[in-house]
């Protein structure tokens, strides 16, 4: 019985044995040539990445269609750059997974298209704090201000750092046209007008009654949040930019497009 089993196993493993011996023999030869070894390493290590990444650029179904998708306004992009600067991704994800409790807690699961214009994406890897993919519109500007200023004022058990200096600092708007132009070069479809008026539009977004707000809405759409986010008069602060960014998270693609795309997935199309 045992002997029989042994032969069966041997027979099953035999073809692999031949493969292994071929590997041993060729390696015994290859390990005498440093450049040959280097080349073999790059080839063996390159295959996996090439097979998994290259098709993501070519397969159309990878990213859903959302023709009416909005772009970040200059102020929102400035806020995003502050989010990058402060390393918010170390504690907050922006990716609602396709799991029941996540959908119940944060809202409809995230689609690939929603971060299509995110350079880089901020899906994150750790939730020391909550997911932010759909935080936009969930809290008031006042709440965000108070929370960023000193989180434990509104959420006593929070372990988030206080970001008081955001309220003190003027947002750096001077190179916004260059920033938008760079983003256009890497694939975000900003128009010439949007790039030229970037500074104006950033100022206009915190001044709902001013003239500049009209141009902003014309260029970025009716749904744009035009408010004095930090309730302080004068130039936009970093707090304005940050709140403007947080308030647009999850709002770039309209809910109906998201629902329709998810319905298509569930129907198995």
């Amino acid at each position, binding site marked *: 019985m045992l002997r029989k089993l042994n032969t069966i196993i041997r027979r099953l493993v035999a073809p692999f044995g031949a493969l292994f011996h071929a590997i041993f023999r060729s390696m015994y030869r290859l390990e005498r040539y440093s450049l040959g070894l280097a080349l073999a390493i790059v080839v063996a290590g390159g295959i996996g990445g090439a097979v998994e990444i290259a098709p993501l650029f070519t397969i159309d179904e990878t990213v859903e269609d959302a023709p009416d998708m909005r772009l970040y306004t200059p102020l929102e992009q400035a806020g995003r750059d502050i989010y990058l600067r402060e*390393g918010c991704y170390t504690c907050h994800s922006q990716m609602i997974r396709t799991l029941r409790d996540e959908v119940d807690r944060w809202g409809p699961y995230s689609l690939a298209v929603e*971060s299509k214009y995110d350079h*880089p994406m901020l899906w994150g890897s750790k939730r020391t704090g*909550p997911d932010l993919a759909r935080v936009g519109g969930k809290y008031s500007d006042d709440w965000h201000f108070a929370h960023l200023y000193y989180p434990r004022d509104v959420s006593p058990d929070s372990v988030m750092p*206080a970001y008081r200096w955001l309220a003190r600092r003027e947002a750096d708007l001077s190179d916004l046209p260059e920033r938008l132009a760079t983003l256009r070069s890497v*694939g975000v479809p900003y128009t010439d007008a949007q790039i030229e008026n970037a500074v104006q539009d950033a100022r206009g977004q915190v001044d709902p009654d001013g003239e500049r707000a009209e141009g902003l809405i014309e260029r970025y759409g009716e749904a744009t949040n035009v408010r004095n986010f930090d309730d302080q008069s004068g130039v936009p602060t970093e707090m304005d930019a940050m709140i403007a960014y947080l308030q647009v998270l999850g709002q770039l693609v309209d809910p109906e497009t998201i629902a329709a795309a998810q319905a298509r997935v569930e129907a198995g199309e």
Partner: protein
Amino acid sequence: MVSALPVGTRVLVLIVLLLGALVGLAMAVAGNGEAFGAHGWIVLLFCAVLAWRVMSRLDAPEPPASRLRSYYDDPIKVGIILAMIWAVIGMGFGLWVAYLLAWPDLTFDAPWASFGRLRPAHTTGIIFGFGGSALIATSFHVMQRTCRARLAGEFSPWFVLLGYQLFVILAISGYLMGINQSKEYAEAEWYADLWLVVVWVTYFTLYIRTLARRNEPHIYVANWYYLAFILIVAVLHIFNNIALPVSWSGSRSYIVWSGVQDAMMQWWYGHNAVAFFLTAGFLGMLYYYLPKRAQRPIYSYRLSILSFWGITFFYVWVGSHHLHYTALPQWVQTLGMTFSVMLLVPSWATAANALLTLNGAWDKVRDDATLRFMMVAAIFYGLTTFEGSFLAIRGVNALSHYTDWTVAHVHAGTLGWNAILIFGAIYAAVPVIWRRERMWSPRLVEWHFWLAVMGTVIYVFAMWNSGILQGLMWRTYTDAGTLQYPFIDTVVAMRPYYIARAVGGTMFLVGTLLGVWNIWMTIRRTPEADLAQDRPTTPEGEAGERSVPAE
């Protein structure tokens, strides 16, 4: 050290430092008071300090030609010291962020002291500062000994080691000043990334040129792993960091990748930084220092071939397991999961090969804490790779991802495997490199060993508990079908574990400080030893001919 360099090389070093200083000055001027300008000053200062060191020894006499018949160990000495300095800095940042999570107001209202800026300083300080310096130093040691040949050149080893330090300094000081491109474990901005490419290409050519001098027909296993580490890390670094600067006089840039493609690129990079920086390079270390210290040959040559190619081929596929249940297409997730599970075979083959090598030397493991460091590292390697394959399974990942379980897993690897192996390797290397009889105090090594192991165990258990608890709380429903816990409840539940973790981390850092002291005293106080056998086998005449540095 400078006086051991030929006068021509000293002049070359000065020219390179002058060029570096000019670039630094240009950055400082262009930066116009912003963080980019501060980086310019840092580059300038870095070059100036080194130039001053070289200048003060410029007129020292030409070193004797006989030096070319010995190994070139000066850069290794500096590399080991730098690695220990980074260990203290990186672990110091780590402790600070650990305490911040328990006491979030420890930031004194200073932007640079907030969690989001300190955390990348911790990861970069440990992975790239401590781990990278240790990898460079040990690779110089291992490649010379296993090739029985002197390092190729006396300039490029310094260029690699110190140029790399500049990269780490720019990266970490950048995060504290708010320069962060927010790609995890690749947070440094475009100019630091470009600089790293220059350093890395030099590193590769140095390695290949030293291999070309070898007096052994075969390239030893440890060198395969170091080669894989250098090559694949270069590929990963370049692709993941392709970015367009907003201006040439500022730090900001935008990554060319976006959304789902960027996510895949990021975790292809991120996981293979684990695979090729923290695994392949460290396996190179393990394959030299463990058999050497145990004075036993590697258990199986064939097993090392299989596990080497298994690791090189399989690892590259697994990055997508960081993106289970996300907007990444499912076929990529499935590939990542499948390869992650298969990866267990070469990983455990490697761990088994290391542990079986100790057969017949277990009495040494009992008596010699240095060898015990390496043995425990191999065990943690086995545990962590098992856990990694397990966590990559979609269903498990649904629970573990985004929680402290990931943190537990990473630290079982970085503390238990990487750091503990480095300490073992350094305790083995220091007496050889400095020509000492032994470490100053074997008792301190013993103390360091137990502090490191206990610290790691406390840390990992705390984070396992907190991670699993958090994952379960997030998905608990009431009978009415609603979520039972608001998010903030899970934050409150973490607090005791965060404190326990900080305690474990403190123990680990105390052990490291003991190690620093011990190494220092070994250099200063321990009697010298005669290690006549530790030299290259190059025949004298040939060594003379090859003596002209290629630079």
